[in-house]
């Protein structure tokens, strides 16, 4: 199933990116070309092959549960475009709406 311009817009939105129309068209074409290429892999029979989750043949790389010093807070906050005292500050992200009027009426009846 080929990628359409709608898919590109959807993915762009998930990644919070905005593109011009001609860019979207270009990406649509490129996405299709990449997928076509990857699709070649489907020609292989993988029935008896275990899925590979990692390219490096390593396992169980652990740390012991030991506390190390964190970074100086001022260094951490240096990257903040906006801050209030020791907090990062971002535009309001959440809004809880009151139940709609008609719902309220329903509850009372």
């Amino acid at each position, binding site marked *: 199933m080929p990628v359409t311009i709608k898919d590109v817009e959807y993915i762009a939105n998930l990644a919070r990116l905005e593109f011009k129309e001609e860019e979207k068209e270009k990406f649509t074409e490129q996405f299709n070309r990449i997928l076509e290429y990857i699709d070649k892999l489907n020609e292989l029979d993988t029935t008896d092959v275990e899925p590979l989750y990692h390219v490096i043949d390593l396992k169980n*790389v652990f*740390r012991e549960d*030991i506390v190390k010093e964190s970074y100086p807070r001022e260094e951490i906050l240096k990257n903040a475009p906006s801050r209030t005292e020791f907090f990062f500050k971002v535009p309001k*992200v959440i809004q809880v*709406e009151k139940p709609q009027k008609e719902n309220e009426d*329903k509850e009372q009846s």
Partner: protein
Amino acid sequence: MFADKYEAVIGLEIHAQLLTNSKAFCGCSTKFGLPPNSNVCPICLGMPGTLPVLNKRVVEFAIKLGLATHCKIRTYSIFARKNYFYPDLPKGYQISQYEEPICYDGYVEIELKNGEKKKIRLRRIHMEEDAGKSIHDQDVDTLIDINRCGVPLLEIVTEPDINTPQEAALYLTKIRQLVQYLDICDGNMEEGSLRCDANVSVRLKGEKKLGTKTEVKNMNSIKNVEKALEYEINRQIQILESGGTVIQETLLWDAGAGVVRPMRSKEEAHDYRYFPEPDLVPVVVPEEWINEIKKSLPELPEEKRDRFMKQYKLPKYDAEVLTSSKALADYYEQCVKYIDDYKSVSNWIMVEVLKILNERQIDIADFKVKPEHLAMLINLVNEGKINQTTAKMVLEEISETGEEPDSLIERKGLLQISDESFIEEVVVKVLEGNKENVERYFAGKDKLFGYFVGEVMKLTKGKANPKIVNEVLKRKLEEMRVKVNG
């Protein structure tokens, strides 16, 4: 009112914050309540070029809980990235597990009110990291504290096996008890170290197909989970009864108003585009490791309850209450080291101690009376040195001061009077001063006996041994009756 017509189907997702010292993938402290953004480093802040390294204890804790909930442990387990944008998640993805969770196919058994047992199946338990904290109500903007970012969590997901808010509460209580026994999470719902979200739908009884579900969040106590589910089930039934349709949405429980409200977030796309986390290598759990952890498992609540019934000859009810938390069970066992009267200790803890804890809203850990002091107090009662009423008073007082019971009893002169000749003196005095009442007693007013006891107690400031008072009083009255009649 339509409750009999419908059935609710509930699945719970519990997030348990793990009691590790350091975060899941870096060495920052997990300590709660530190100043904002003070335990943060480039790894938990998601700086480019950093690499997470898994805290071994997180895997151990996951396996512990998996074993305690009859799960299968996956010997080959991997991490995944769950991608979404939210300011308290600076990396833009949460490291979680998707395809190969470490524990799967388990169950927890709950006991319903009617004594019936019900298995709540667990679909999976997986390891993941917590996000930071967004504070929405202190500023016109949202404030972000990254301290919690990267703190290890276990997410415990049930199958939709729960049918009532009460079952949900029982299940949650059980999980909280388990994580506390295993010492992997403090289980504090108010502080958010144990969090619970619910998927709720309703359907006509007998219907096989599931109804449209909603997700209810923000329930920060077991009581609130019960209330929120009650509310949400009724809300959905009312919508269906009035011919409407339930909308699939996320709802926040407002405990103050007792209602759920739709949560509107600017990040509504629920397309997490999971893919295997390339920065972390697979976790391979050999059989020996599982066995080692199995051996290290502490005695679990049900085993402890059964042992208490056997070892201390306690009724099931007592054993259940005492083992409801590990701390309480430990307190009991500390007490009975100093006294053989197991049942009395159980009564005292279940009634008096729990009453005090409840009144003051404190935990047994903050209870000032040492186990040996409670044992001493009960021994004093058993030996007849103080009576029950005095003992309760003493307990009340030393639970505030932490003083030793015998020193308080001596200081206040509370020792019970068991000197029979002294008690006899007082009894005679009371009977002589109440000649009319004595006559009425002989005429059949039996209830006056209690009045006489009360008068003796009054004169001895409550210190007279009630048993001896009763005996002496009975004897004296009998003597007088013989005299009058004879």
